[in-house]
């Protein structure tokens, strides 16, 4: 991306968005015997109450060649058992570049399906990044919203035959979404629409411990080694803005307690346009649905009778 072409604010926004799309941690999900933990790059397929506070990442050289720190929070609140809203935001520091709060981000998501015996579930949702709510280096990047419909799915391998039983703790999750700015151009500079896609491969030792063989170590039995792959591919205005596919490979591990989890992953750029150098990301998540409080139940616990889960 040419900084002289679009200026620092938009360059910073673009660079930060590329990382930020990959950095928020997302709620955990439960379907049958499978618990999908909150992963850092790819949203999991659940809609449960959860608080991510904080998620922090560092990359030595982002797509603009800047040294970057990001922090964020995300709060998911169920409206009905299968419907929840998400609110999140957070600051970014870039050098060179500056500092600023990213735009406020909200989403509505619906648990469309869970087949317990198949350990399969997916959700659909719609995310809005609200224009004009950023500050600092994100304050002058235009007032348009960015709209992101998304689909997330998860599949546990628990139905594998007995001969492959040690592969049953494996699970995959994936996400597909498109992010479309409300305007094609801001002050003559192109706004890029992207196709966001990726998946995770995870091996759940908690699943191993409760389904295959007891693990006699309180620490090990809560670990979930995970590998995440998350990419952004420009689908509109990409060529004009000089953008190509960016993405990270994020190997790491999650420690999942009963009511919270902590995750730590490396961030390995997968394309030259992503940047270079290995970064790191970590998060702390609280399973609010599993923590006793006055907000852990859906606002309408029995649903509204509109659709399954709603």
């Amino acid at each position: 991306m040419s900084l002289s072409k679009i200026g620092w604010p938009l360059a910073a926004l673009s660079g930060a968005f590329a990382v930020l799309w990959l950095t928020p941690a997302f709620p955990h999900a439960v379907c049958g015997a499978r618990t999908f933990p909150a992963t850092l790059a790819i949203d999991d397929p659940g809609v449960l109450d959860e608080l991510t506070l904080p998620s922090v990442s560092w990359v030595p050289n982002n797509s603009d060649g800047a040294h970057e720190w990001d922090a964020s929070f995300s709060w998911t609140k169920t409206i009905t058992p299968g419907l929840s809203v998400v609110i999140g935001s957070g600051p970014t520091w870039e050098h060179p570049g500056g500092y600023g709060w990213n735009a406020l981000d909200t989403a509505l998501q619906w648990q469309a399906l869970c087949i317990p015996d198949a350990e399969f579930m997916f959700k659909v949702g719609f995310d809005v990044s609200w224009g004009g709510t950023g500050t600092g280096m994100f304050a002058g990047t235009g007032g348009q919203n960015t709209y992101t419909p998304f689909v997330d799915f998860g599949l546990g391998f628990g139905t594998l035959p007995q001969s492959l039983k040690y592969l049953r703790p494996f699970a995959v999750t994936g996400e597909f979404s498109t992010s479309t700015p409300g305007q094609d151009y801001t002050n003559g500079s192109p706004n890029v629409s992207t196709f966001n896609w990726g998946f995770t491969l995870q091996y759940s030792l908690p699943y191993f411990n409760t389904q295959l063989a007891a693990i006699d170590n309180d620490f090990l039995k809560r670990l979930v080694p995970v590998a995440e792959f998350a990419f952004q591919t420009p689908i509109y205005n990409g060529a004009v803005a000089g953008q190509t596919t960016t993405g990270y490979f994020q190997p790491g591990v999650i420690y999942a307690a009963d009511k919270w989890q902590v995750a730590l992953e490396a961030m390995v750029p997968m394309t030259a346009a992503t940047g270079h150098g290995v970064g790191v990301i970590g998060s702390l998540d609280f399973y609010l649905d599993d923590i006793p409080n006055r907000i852990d139940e859906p606002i309408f616990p029995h649903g509204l009778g509109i659709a399954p889960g709603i």
Partner: protein
Amino acid sequence: MRTNILKVAASLAFALAASQAFAHAQLQKATPPVGGTVASASEIRLEFSEGVEPKFTKVTLIGPGGGAVPLGAASTAAGNQAVLIVPIAKPLVAGDYKVHWQAVSVDTHHTQGTFEFSVKP
């Protein structure tokens, strides 16, 4: 404003976490042990992370021949609603057994799981 949001969010997570726990009942430990081998077993004991409702919690035991092994009524341990005890109606013969459980925690969250154990000859 955002500072306030962070404060509120943090408060929601921490300050309200002081009463009795109601949540997903995750299996913590089983007797006979998950994947283990025992000489005999007179009951299935499942220890969960949260209290469970015995009336809505279902446990089945499949024997070496593929048939269901008769079980008694499930109950929770005295003074500990997180421990579910299911009597096995008759002595187990040697072989491999499969336990399937479906638990409903006291706040109606559903969880389930399956594990195997063996009874040695």
